[in-house]
């Protein structure tokens, strides 16, 4: 039984069946990639996992608990963090302040109004955020406006913010989309490092096959809202159905 | 604005100031007060400052501008300039044209914005900053009541400008405040006989009433006086102050069986509701075999101008009108018209008279002390100010004088000639007991001289 169990999930938008009967199991501490052509329902699936969308049918269990009907922040509190296709960070805040927010976010979402206590807790939070910045190799940028950074740095910050919460499952939505090759490789290295050091489960939606085959331990191929196959990267590479439905075009294009 | 005379005390502070600097002193009370006057803002030196608090912005700005013109004229006359205006017709001959008690009259102006908060802020700055010993003006009852209460607290005299609500000298009356303008009750009392004479005693009235204090008191006054002579009130509907279009209130009128529409509206509300009512063709209809009629209890010439031709033939009441032919009115119209080129409005008249009455009261009392002024004004009877013999009643500080019933003129000679006087209702017909139920609930209190 995996840490994330998706059973029979379906979602319609008007006349369009975006997802139909998706079953998926992500094993704990694995890196699981979900690939598929445009419109295959990858993002819809992801949104169903984090509470942005509610599926019409089926169930989603995280660590044995249903996530359905919970709001995004509640699902996050269960231990799922999400990295977006375009980095979602606090653009108007400094890098340090960005990092302080997840450090501050206690799992119960409570906050401190007591002035003295807040000063004390602010110190702890700052220390923790500082530590995290060092770990993400961004300490030199701590006072920069987050919006002024390069895309790669924004991504790095966003991932760092997710990690600061010590999640059990990290969801990545095309983390290298729109990045230069060098940034992409850096991101791959970063994710590898995270996997090695932190042993957290990673689920990744990706277009770039290079990224997928560098990272993933198992791959699910989605097509037209249903999973086509699920296997190891090596097997997927040679799978005829996949070639036909997806890889043929994709490799040709790449 | 501090309260008690006992707190007064002058103490010198030694300071290493230069020779040019006089010795700094700290003391309670006003700078303008001489040491032992015992009241707020006692005039010092050879001038006295009056505060003219009128709407300069907002919908009543034109009325406020006219009030200000009247005040400037009054100051000119008090200081001996111009032709003296009503000073020559005023029954009290105390005013000499040498200022008040020999002090030259100066004035400060402020903007009430027709909001009670802003009016009070403006009045406070006159009292605290400019040392005004009397504040006057305003174009709505809300402002009058608010500023009157402030003046009571501060210990200066308030001479109300245009305020028609019963409350100003009713439930919200104050010892330091005086109203020359007439009120809702008087409008009702003056109108009723004229309406009976013109429209008969068997009428069904439909009231549209502005949904705030003045509207309430006016509706009550007109209803009770018309019902007393046999009219029936079919319906009374309150309309929001913010309304600009009254069509949805007017449309059902014809269908209600009423044959008279009473518009208890003032200012922009009145202009719009009357315009709308005429648009609906109400006056061309005949209900119960009677011609449908519209009545506007409180008229002003400026509003009549706004409503244009729609006022023609419509009855209402007004405090004063420039076409009055008594000596006082003629003198006032002449000096106002000569100076500004057009005749004064009723608001201008009441403000001019208030300024004169205050000055005269100070002269008669021989002091600017508010309590002395109150004493001089209470029960004061005078004439020659345009409304015939007038009494400032001691019990509620309301003036009792003739009230004009007017009608929109059918063929105006000029742009100012919009109203014609139908009847001058003598003062005794509009006088009521001081404890009349429409005025119940307030206490005058005692005069407050401040500190």
């Amino acid at each position, binding site marked *: 039984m995996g840490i994330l169990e998706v059973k029979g999930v379906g979602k319609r938008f008007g006349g369009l069946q975006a997802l139909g009967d998706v079953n998926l199991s992500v094993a704990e501490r694995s890196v699981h990639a979900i690939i598929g052509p445009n419109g295959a329902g990858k993002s819809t699936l992801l949104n169903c996992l984090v509470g942005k969308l509610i599926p019409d049918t089926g169930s989603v269990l995280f660590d044995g608990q249903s996530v359905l009907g919970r709001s995004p922040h509640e699902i996050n509190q269960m231990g799922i963090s999400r990295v977006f296709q375009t980095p979602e960070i606090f653009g108007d805040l400094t890098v340090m302040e960005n990092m302080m927010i997840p450090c501050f976010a206690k799992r119960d979402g409570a906050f401190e109004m007591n002035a003295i206590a807040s000063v004390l807790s602010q110190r702890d939070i700052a220390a923790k955020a500082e530590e995290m910045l060092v770990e993400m190799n961004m300490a030199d940028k701590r006072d920069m406006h987050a919006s002024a950074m390069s895309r790669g740095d924004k991504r790095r910050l966003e991932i760092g913010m997710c990690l600061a919460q010590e999640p059990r499952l990290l969801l990545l939505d095309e983390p290298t989309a729109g990045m230069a090759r060098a940034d992409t490789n850096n991101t791959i290295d970063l994710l590898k490092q995270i996997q090695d050091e932190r042993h957290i489960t990673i689920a990744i939606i990706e277009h770039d096959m290079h990224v997928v085959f560098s990272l993933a331990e198992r791959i699910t191929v989605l097509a037209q809202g249903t999973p086509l196959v699920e296997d190891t990267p090596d097997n997927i590479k040679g799978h005829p159905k996949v070639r036909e439905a997806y890889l043929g075009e994709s490799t040709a294009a790449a | 604005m501090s309260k008690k005379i006992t707190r007064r005390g002058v103490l010198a502070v030694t300071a290493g100031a230069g020779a040019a600097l006089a010795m700094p002193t700290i003391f309670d009370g006003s700078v303008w007060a001489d040491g032992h006057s015992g009241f707020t803002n006692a005039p010092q030196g050879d001038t006295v400052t009056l505060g003219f608090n009128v709407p300069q*912005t*907002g*919908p*009543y*700005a*034109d*009325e406020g*501008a006219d009030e200000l013109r009247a005040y400037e004229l009054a100051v000119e006359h008090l200081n001996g300039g111009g032709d003296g205006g009503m000073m020559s017709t005023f029954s009290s001959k105390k005013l000499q044209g040498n200022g008040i008690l020999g002090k030259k009259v100066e004035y400060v102006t402020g903007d009430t914005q027709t909001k009670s908060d802003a009016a009070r802020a403006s009045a406070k700055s006159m009292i605290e900053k400019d040392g005004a010993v009397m504040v006057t003006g305003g174009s709505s009852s809300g402002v009058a009541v608010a500023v009157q209460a402030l003046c009571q607290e501060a210990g200066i005299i308030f001479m109300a400008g245009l305020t028609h609500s019963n409350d100003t000298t009713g439930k919200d009356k104050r010892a330091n405040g005086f109203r020359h303008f007439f009120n809702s009750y008087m409008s009702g009392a003056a109108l009723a006989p004229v309406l009976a004479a013109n429209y008969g005693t068997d009428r069904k009235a439909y009231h549209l009433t502005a*949904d705030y204090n003045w509207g309430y008191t006016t509706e009550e006054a007109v209803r009770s006086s018309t019902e007393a002579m046999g009219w029936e009130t079919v*319906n009374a*509907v*309150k*309309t*929001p102050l*913010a309304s*600009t*279009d009254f*069509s*949805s*209130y007017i*449309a*059902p009128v*014809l*269908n209600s069986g009423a044959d008279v529409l009473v518009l208890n509206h003032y200012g*922009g509300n009145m*202009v*719009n509701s009357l*315009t*709308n009512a005429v*648009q*609906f*063709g109400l006056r*061309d*209809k005949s*209900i119960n075999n009677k011609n449908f009629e519209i009545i506007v209890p409180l008229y002003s010439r*400026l*509003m009549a*101008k*706004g*409503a*244009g*031709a*729609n006022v023609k033939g419509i009855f209402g009441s007004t405090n004063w009108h*420039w*076409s009055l032919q008594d000596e006082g009115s003629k003198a006032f*119209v*002449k000096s106002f*018209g*000569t100076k500004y080129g057009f*005749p004064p409005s009723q608001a201008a008249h009441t403000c001019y008279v208030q300024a004169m009455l205050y000055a005269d009261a100070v002269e008669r009392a021989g002091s600017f002390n508010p309590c002395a002024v109150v004493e001089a004004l209470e029960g004061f009877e005078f004439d020659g100010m345009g409304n015939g013999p007038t009494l400032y009643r001691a019990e509620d500080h309301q003036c009792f004088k003739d009230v004009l019933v007017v009608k929109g003129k059918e063929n105006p*000679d*000029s742009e*100012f*000639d919009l109203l014609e006087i139908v009847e001058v209702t003598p003062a005794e017909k509009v006088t009521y007991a001081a404890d009349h139920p429409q005025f119940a609930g307030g206490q005058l209190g005692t005069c407050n001289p401040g500190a």
Partner: protein
Amino acid sequence: MDAFILQILNGLDKGSAYALIALGLTLIFGTLGVVNFAHGALFMIGAFVAVTVSRILSISMVVEDPTKTDFLGNPAKISTPYVEEWFGPTIGAGILDWAVPISIIIAIPIMIVIGVIMERGLIQHFYKRPHADQILVTFGLAIVLQEVIKYFYGANPIPTPAPAAFIGSFDFGAMIGFDPNTIIYPYWRLVYFAFSAIIIAVVFAFLQFTTFGMVVRAGMADRETVGLLGINIDKRFTMMFGLAAAVAGLAGVMYAPINSPNYHMGMDFLVLSFIVVVVGGMGSLGGAVLAGFLLGILESFASMSAVIELIPGINQVIIYLVAIIILLTRPRGLLGRKGVMED
């Protein structure tokens, strides 16, 4: 029953004013993304175009008439408008009488010019600025415009009557079988309603069937893409601002006989028109029109004395109450798109 029909008629009439103002407002928001607090001022300026035209038409030749005296006892001045002098009393008086309809023709170019100047001179610098800045600067502009009008025309309302032919009312009830005088409605208000319907139809047709309109609609949907096609969308948007100003101005011209224009009439309508736009859905033209009529009708119903007796004060708050209920149940307004103005 007749009372209901009467109030529906009323509501349609009220609603047509709301719809016209809101239409221009949402046109500007939809195309330019600008929250224009000066839109009410454009409505007011429109009404004052009517005032000005009738004043210009009645510029008079003044002669002293020694037989009459004015209020000071001086010889009275008799003034005859030049139009009466030139065209004879009958035609001259007729021209004066028709000042408001004549103003429509004059108002269109004037309002377009004012709109274009506003957009080029001020608004265009605010496209990239936060909505709060847009609100502040257009609010400042609205104050300036109304104070300028006040300076020249005073604070008092100025009567601007409709042509004599439209004075009086139409007995609608008698026509559909009710007793006479049960449902009557002033001619000019019926004209106003018809006029609004025409303007709304023209604006929709313009956007729907002309290339210009198509480009603008495409620009409303996706400004960047249209820009990439090499179409100068900015120029067209400037024209849209002119158009919106003209719609507001015409609404004002035609409104002048209904309520005597005063300098603050724009502010009186401002809050209301924003509520109409938001209830209809930001950026939705159809929504603005629908919401305008809906709120007009509800407001009319709420002013019925039976309703006020049932719920005191309902006539004071109905608009706001409806706005709250709609925004809570239909977050994007009646016909609004998702994600517009939510941050």
